[in-house]
């Protein structure tokens, strides 16, 4: 049985605060390829990791604009160019009555884009991931917190990284294999 190359090292914590502190320490130590796992949102840790959620908002906003434009544009194009008809004496381009659907479609697209954008930014769906190899990782969705150092980090070497993590007072440090 040949050992596959390691994916990285996982340190397990039982408190969000220790994990957050560990993230801060790691960042200060110059680690760049690292990730933290938690059973509920820990905004402080995200902040420490330097993650921005703004792109989700931008995606939603762009989708809203596109949806609105398509909806209003379709209504206008159909009513003015494709088949102009006399509906109760209203002019062909009765734009105020196109607004309600435009508004609804914009919201619909924004919401759908928020979900899809969030998933895309997160690289989800990804059913198989090396992180699931980590020991005790199933408790990441329950009550444990993890800090992960990637093997691809320039600072990474197996012993140094393990030593660094042990210094952060984890419950356990374990190697994560890549496959």
């Amino acid at each position, binding site marked *: 049985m040949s050992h596959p190359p390691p994916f990285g090292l996982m340190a397990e914590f039982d408190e969000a605060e220790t994990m957050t502190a560990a993230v801060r320490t790691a960042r200060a130590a110059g680690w760049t390829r690292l990730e933290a796992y938690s059973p509920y949102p820990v905004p402080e840790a995200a902040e420490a990791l330097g993650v921005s959620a703004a792109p989700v908002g931008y995606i939603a906003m762009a989708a809203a604009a596109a949806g609105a434009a398509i909806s209003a544009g379709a209504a206008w194009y159909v009513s*003015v160019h494709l088949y102009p008809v006399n509906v109760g004496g209203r002019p062909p381009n009765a734009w105020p009555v196109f607004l309600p659907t435009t508004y609804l479609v914009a919201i619909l697209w924004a919401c759908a884009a928020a979900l899809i954008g969030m998933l895309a930014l997160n690289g989800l769906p990804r*059913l*198989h991931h090396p992180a*699931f190899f980590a020991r*005790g990782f199933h408790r990441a969705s329950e009550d444990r917190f993890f800090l992960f150092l990637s093997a691809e980090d320039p600072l990474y070497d197996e012993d140094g990284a393990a030593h660094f993590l042990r210094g952060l007072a984890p419950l356990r440090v374990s190697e994560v294999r890549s496959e």
Partner: protein
Amino acid sequence: MAQIFTTQADARLRLALIVGAALVLLIGAAVFAYVRSGNAWAIGRPAAQPIPFSHAVHAGDLGLDCRFCHAGVERRTDAGMPSAETCLGCHERVWNVTAQFAPLRAAIARRAAVEWSSVSRLPDHARFDHAAHSQAGVTCESCHGKVQEMPRTARAETLSMGFCLDCHRNPAAGTQPAAAPAVRPHGLQSLRYEHYGVEVSPLTRCSTCHR
């Protein structure tokens, strides 16, 4: 801990998503194409007729004018189907095949019309005026196709609302300018108007064709 999904699971999921999306698009496109296709409108499928009449022989080889049999085409809503007398007027003398013409003789005996099957029948709610169209320069061929090449008469166009609208939106393309004035003085074409800069033609109003 152990992985719940294998490494291939992600690939399979992606494939499933892509195939699913492609299927949806494909089915949509197929339906879109089918409802516009000749199949959905029975194009090319001849109807059962009381006698095996061939337009290819009469209109093609012999070069008979359409109006010889469809006498009302320039004057009436209904172009008219030939009566048994019209057929037998010639066929008493030429190609007098008694067995074939039995339905015609029966019709004369019953004083009834010959029960031709129409291949261009429009639905009950549509009204088509042959006189108005022929006077406006619409050729028979534009709707009925090249009947002079059809041994068994079959529908040549969908005759769907979209088909009618194509021509009603742009009548010039479908008519023979030589055969009629560009715009008939009291025809609907003469009453095009503009509203808020949008040009509207009476030819595309519902009541022009529907009843």
